[in-house]
């Protein structure tokens, strides 16, 4: 029977020859991930059933990244629970202090997730790893607890949707715009319970950083996972970092999709998602005049080198507009170091930006850049829900890093062309 890449990875991990959409399976997990918000509950449940050891000390990964550096006593206590558990279980992968990065940037970068893996994470943006050709999906703390003990999780095999991207990418358009455009097209539940497979000539040439941004936001369309069939770009990325052998899966030519959509990328401009849902997208040229109090460049969606470089390109020799706060958050310590060595920090600092240590921080309204009542932010993050970045009466607009940098300079949502010619 022909299968999609998602179905093949699930079948393999369930020890089955084939699986069909709708089938309930128990599958082995290669990585089970938790953070400072979700892991404390999982650890409590782990202890609650009297479990002694995790199923594999190399495969349980703890990344306290959400409120790092610990913002208050309560969050410090949460991180302590993770630290003690990591020590007691001798976990190989526990990242804290100067080693912590945003989990979904950190795991691919460190080669902890590899192509062909089945990954669950108690964080909705776990779907990011689909960019490597892995099946990765977000679950809750109880699922994480169960997986930490038995190394398995239950799944309903999702139907797959295929998204084909053709044509030439416009200037200043990257993976973030493609995924925002797609979510605008299908809605925030347009892929509910389904796999989103991204393909086509544009994806074939898309950088790994942009692919990670796209798969990262599959959840914002309700998707179970986002996935891209691995190729030479994937190989070049993983070869230097994979800590385990990996396997490339592909979709069969006659695999069954419940829906196929084609997009002509030559018609896609930089996108801006208006409050309070990621589906409220507009072309940048249709935005009008919207003044901004804060700009955030970072997060598991857009805190990687490509994002930081394009922001620097816009900010070089420019100043952040008066009364605007620009916060730049390199997603991992390695990215932080590389951005510093490439001279990007000097450009940011001269422009008047704030450089934050790696953290999820403001993206979820945690800390390091919270909004007051009535304030408005443009962010390269993934969610613009009510109160997401602070006060319930604040607003978040979503866009790519080039638009974000241009917006910081202009003090209103701006096209990168208004600030610099490519």
């Amino acid at each position, binding site marked *: 029977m022909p299968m999609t890449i998602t179905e093949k990875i699930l079948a393999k991990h369930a020890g089955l020859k084939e699986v069909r959409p709708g089938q309930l399976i128990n599958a082995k997990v290669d990585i089970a991930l938790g953070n400072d918000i979700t892991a404390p509950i999982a650890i409590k449940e782990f202890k609650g059933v009297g479990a002694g050891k995790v199923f594999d000390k190399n495969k349980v990964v703890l990344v306290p990244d959400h409120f790092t550096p610990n913002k208050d006593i309560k969050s410090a206590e949460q991180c302590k629970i993770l630290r003690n558990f990591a020590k007691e279980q001798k976990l190989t992968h526990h990242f804290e202090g100067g080693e912590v990065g945003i989990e979904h940037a950190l795991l691919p970068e460190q080669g902890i997730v590899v192509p062909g893996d089945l990954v669950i994470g108690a964080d909705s943006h776990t779907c990011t790893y689909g960019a490597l050709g892995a099946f990765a999906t977000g679950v*809750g703390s109880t699922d994480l607890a169960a997986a930490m003990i038995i190394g398995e999780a239950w799944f309903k095999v999702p139907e797959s949707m295929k998204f084909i991207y053709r044509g030439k990418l416009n200037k200043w358009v990257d993976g973030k715009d493609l995924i925002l455009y797609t979510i605008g097209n299908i809605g925030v539940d347009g892929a509910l319970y389904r796999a989103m497979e991204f393909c086509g000539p544009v994806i074939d040439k898309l950088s790994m950083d942009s692919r990670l941004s796209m798969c990262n936001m599959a959840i914002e369309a309700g998707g179970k996972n986002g996935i891209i069939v691995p190729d030479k770009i994937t190989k070049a990325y993983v070869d230097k970092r994979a800590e385990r052998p990996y396997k490339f899966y592909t979709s069969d030519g006659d695999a069954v999709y419940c829906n196929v959509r084609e997009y002509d990328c030559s018609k896609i401009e930089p996108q801006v998602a208006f409050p309070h849902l990621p589906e409220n997208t507009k072309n940048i040229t249709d935005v009008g005049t919207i003044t901004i109090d804060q700009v955030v460049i970072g997060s598991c969606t857009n805190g990687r080198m490509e994002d930081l470089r394009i922001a620097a390109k816009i900010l070089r020799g420019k100043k952040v507009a008066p009364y605007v706060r620009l916060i730049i958050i390199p997603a991992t310590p390695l990215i932080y170091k590389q951005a510093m060595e490439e001279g990007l920090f000097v450009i940011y600092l001269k422009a008047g930006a704030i450089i934050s240590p790696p953290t999820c921080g403001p993206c979820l309204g945690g800390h390091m850049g919270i909004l007051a009542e009535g304030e408005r932010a443009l962010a390269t993050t993934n969610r613009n829900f009510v109160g997401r970045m602070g006060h*319930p009466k604040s607003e978040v607009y979503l866009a790519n890093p080039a638009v974000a940098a241009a917006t910081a300079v202009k003090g209103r949502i701006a096209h990168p062309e208004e600030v610099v010619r490519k």
Partner: protein
Amino acid sequence: MKFKGKAWKFGADIDTDQIIPARYLNTSDPKELAKHCMEDADPDFIKKMKPGDIIVAGKNFGCGSSREHAPISIKAAGISCVIAKSFARIFYRNSFNMGLPIFESPAAVDSIAEGDEVEVHMDTGRIVNLTKNKTFDSQPIPPFMQELISTGGLMEWVKKKIG
């Protein structure tokens, strides 16, 4: 087993940030989380609702984050069950795993107005709007998930497995 309570109505795409804002996620204590249940959707909700009441919402309830704190805060606030047109998948999964009964029925949601008295039969998934005297059937729960519920949730199931 059946639930009977007053309906509190919410719209479509109620995300987990509205159910339990991230500013309260520095704890996982159910009692603390209950105090802020639905706060960013309706700041007075927790003052108005009574234990046993039912949340009735539009499509895609619980979209966004994977935080189990969302179903935990609803359950700890004393809400007996949630009826929605559809649920976001992680919220759906979390609810079964930690024992918050949820039911999918677009027709029931359309019929129920805020303040209506509603009765839900856990075993059959039958929803009765007592105020309007109308009956609806919710989507049947898949057998594996029924097994999870009858075992007492995912962790009990795991406990049995590791014996």
